[in-house]
């Protein structure tokens, strides 16, 4: 809902389960001038930072109203970073210490892990819910709808589909969990994202959503590689 004047702020609901960044990109198309205030949770804020980095949003035209998520919300999202940089609404809740939902996956043997994921991905009916609801997925048409990388256009779409989405999100996923929430067949996508984000941190000390880290890492010269053994980083 886009309000130009707020007469009775008490009536507003702030627990909309949508990703504000995604909504902003849509608003951006027709609201060309003036400043937009937006109620933003921590994940909204980070997603907005990723879009600002890519010049898809104009940061100077945004005013973020920080919304702290409730303890239940934090729990539901297994969120490790729930508190916005400025809290205007709500009370900050303790983050989940360390989301270990994926720990079991990493403990599996490679063979079992592959089995696990193949069985998960076999459920995929290619509804594109994960991409359509993702706040940092910004293409209008998705390359995954084409044949180039997924040779059988059928359903389920095969492994490549999911791997490509994973790598595309590697330097921008803010762990909002929207993909997993919107998946009708319950593929544990957030766990996959979190595992990769941990790798990004370990390999390049990169954390998505950090406005200080200005460059989308995989395209720029940040985090200079090692000469001797390219596989160590």
């Amino acid at each position, binding site marked *: 809902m886009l309000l130009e004047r707020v007469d009775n702020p008490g009536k507003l609901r702030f627990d909309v389960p949508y990703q504000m960044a995604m909504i902003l990109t849509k608003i951006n198309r027709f609201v060309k001038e003036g400043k937009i205030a937006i109620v933003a949770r921590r994940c909204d804020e980070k997603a907005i930072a990723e879009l600002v980095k*890519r*010049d*898809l949003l104009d940061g100077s035209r945004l005013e973020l109203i920080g919304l702290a998520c409730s303890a239940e919300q934090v729990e539901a999202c297994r969120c490790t970073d729930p508190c916005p940089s400025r809290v205007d609404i709500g009370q900050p809740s303790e983050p989940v210490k360390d989301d270990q939902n994926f720990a079991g996956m990493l403990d599996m043997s490679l063979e079992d892990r592959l089995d696990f994921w193949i069985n998960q991905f076999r459920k995929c009916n290619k509804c594109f819910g994960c991409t359509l609801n993702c706040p940092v997925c*910004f*293409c*209008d*048409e*998705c*390359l995954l709808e*084409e044949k*180039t*990388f997924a*040779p059988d256009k059928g359903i389920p779409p095969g492994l490549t589909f999911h791997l490509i989405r994973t790598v*595309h999100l590697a330097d921008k996923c803010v762990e909002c969990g929207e993909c997993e929430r919107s998946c009708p067949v319950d593929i544990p996508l957030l766990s996959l994202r979190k595992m990769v984000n941990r790798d990004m941190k370990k390999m390049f000390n990169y954390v998505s959503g950090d406005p200080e880290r200005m*460059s*989308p890492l*995989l*395209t*720029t010269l940040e985090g200079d590689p090692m000469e001797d053994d390219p596989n160590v980083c």
Partner: protein
Amino acid sequence: MTRIGVFICHCGHNIASAIDIEKVVEYAKGLPGVAYAGHNLYSCSQEGLGSIKKSIEDNDLDRVVVAACTPRTHEPLFRRACEQAGINKYLFEFVNIREHCSWIHAKEPEAATEKAKKLVAMGVAKAALLEPQEEGESEVVPRTVVIGAGISGLAATASLLEQGIETHLVERGDRVGGLLKDISMVGPEGICSRDLIEALVDDIENSPKAHLHLNSRVKELKGFIGNFDVIITKGDEDLTVKAGAIIVATGAQELQPKGEYGFGEHPAVITQLELERRLGRSGLAAKKIVIVNCTGSRQPGREYCSRICCNASLKNAIRILEANPEAKITILHRDIMSCGTTAEALYREASEKGVRFVRYGLEQKPGISTHGKSIKLKVFDEALDESIDLDADLIVLATPLVSPDDSEETSKLLKVPRDKYGFFLEAHVKLRPVEFATDGVFVCGSARWPVSARESIWQGQAAAAKASIPISEGKVRIEAITAEVDSEKCAACGNCVLACPYEAIEIVDDEGRRAAKVSEAQCKGCGTCVAACHNDAIQQKGFSSRQLGAMIDALARASTEGTQ
């Protein structure tokens, strides 16, 4: 359906000794889209090329795959043959079955044959999707802009004019000559610098194609090689000049060594450039002169050697002695860097004339104490391994050249990089010393690195040569293998803009639709942007994701279905 012709080369024994050519030919015949497959003893020989051309005509082929040696040496040859037979040369695909197969699997003929089949299958798969490409051209404005009228910029300008090329020379000061204005004699040759400047300025002033802009700056630079728009501003007035090439010759300045050896406090402590000025004016009264080399350089924070100071110290020492043989001159140094023939001869001459050389170390820098007019220096002489005391009535500090205060501004304005000391960074330290990575923008003189007058001049001429090439040709060739954007797919995320090493991509707004746009004249066809794009919206011609994807499919298929 395509009509691909596949030609397998024996290369004498080189391929045929390990690979069963017949089998590969038979296999190729069965590949999708292949209309003809044959073989040649030497595909690259006149006979071989002739037979390929004949096959193209006889079989009405529209694409050609040659499986032979390496494209790095032979691709142009086969492409030319295709062109002669009426096929666009980008509809040719090279498969390397010699360097990458027969030669490295010489003892495994069966495996080598199987591998050759796979490689041919991959090449054919790509060939089926190849598209004709044209090498574009863009016009070049026959005019240059040289920024900076020091000796290097003057030399560049004079050379361009001499070659008949219209040139705008932009100088922010009110006189030309740069650092040489303060130097009376250029060493080691001992040439009067005023004559040097005047000779160049005469040339420039007498040319109808020269435009000298004093007290002016470049305010804005837009465009690309062949077609730059340069806004030159003077006072309140702006002038837009269209130019085909730009030369950056903004020079360097002498470091003012605040606080070092009493500089700024004691009037008898001066820099080398001040010494030059005094020598040019009236000569020196001082009798006991100490020159301290490497003041402010080759030390933490400013590690570099400024290249020209040793030779300047030697030249000035000799000059002082020639005017006043009674003078006592000591050069404190860390290494005398007189490279080459004339400079080394100068070093020898100075020694023979009685200049005393004392080597000091960074760990124990000379100490200074002043009593009224007299100055005492305490130096640890590394050669003697002991401290010595020196009296001086003039101390000359040989300080390095540093980048001008506004070099950061210049760098942003011209979108050219700088090194950590603020000197401009050339495209390649070894092989492209006067070029920037940006085509059509060149660098010369001390803007790049401290250099002598002689070096400044030849670098200016070198930059002039580079600038004259597109202008004399009148056009620049645009690579056929460039990136292109499908603006329908593009999400304008800017990944490609960030990824491009050449700043050849920008996001443009086309009636509300933002999308990336590749400047083909600037694109070098590396494909870095392609891998950065999340939506496959940017493609490298000749290496599209469909083409490479087809090669992967072909390889996967060959392994699951076999190559029989």
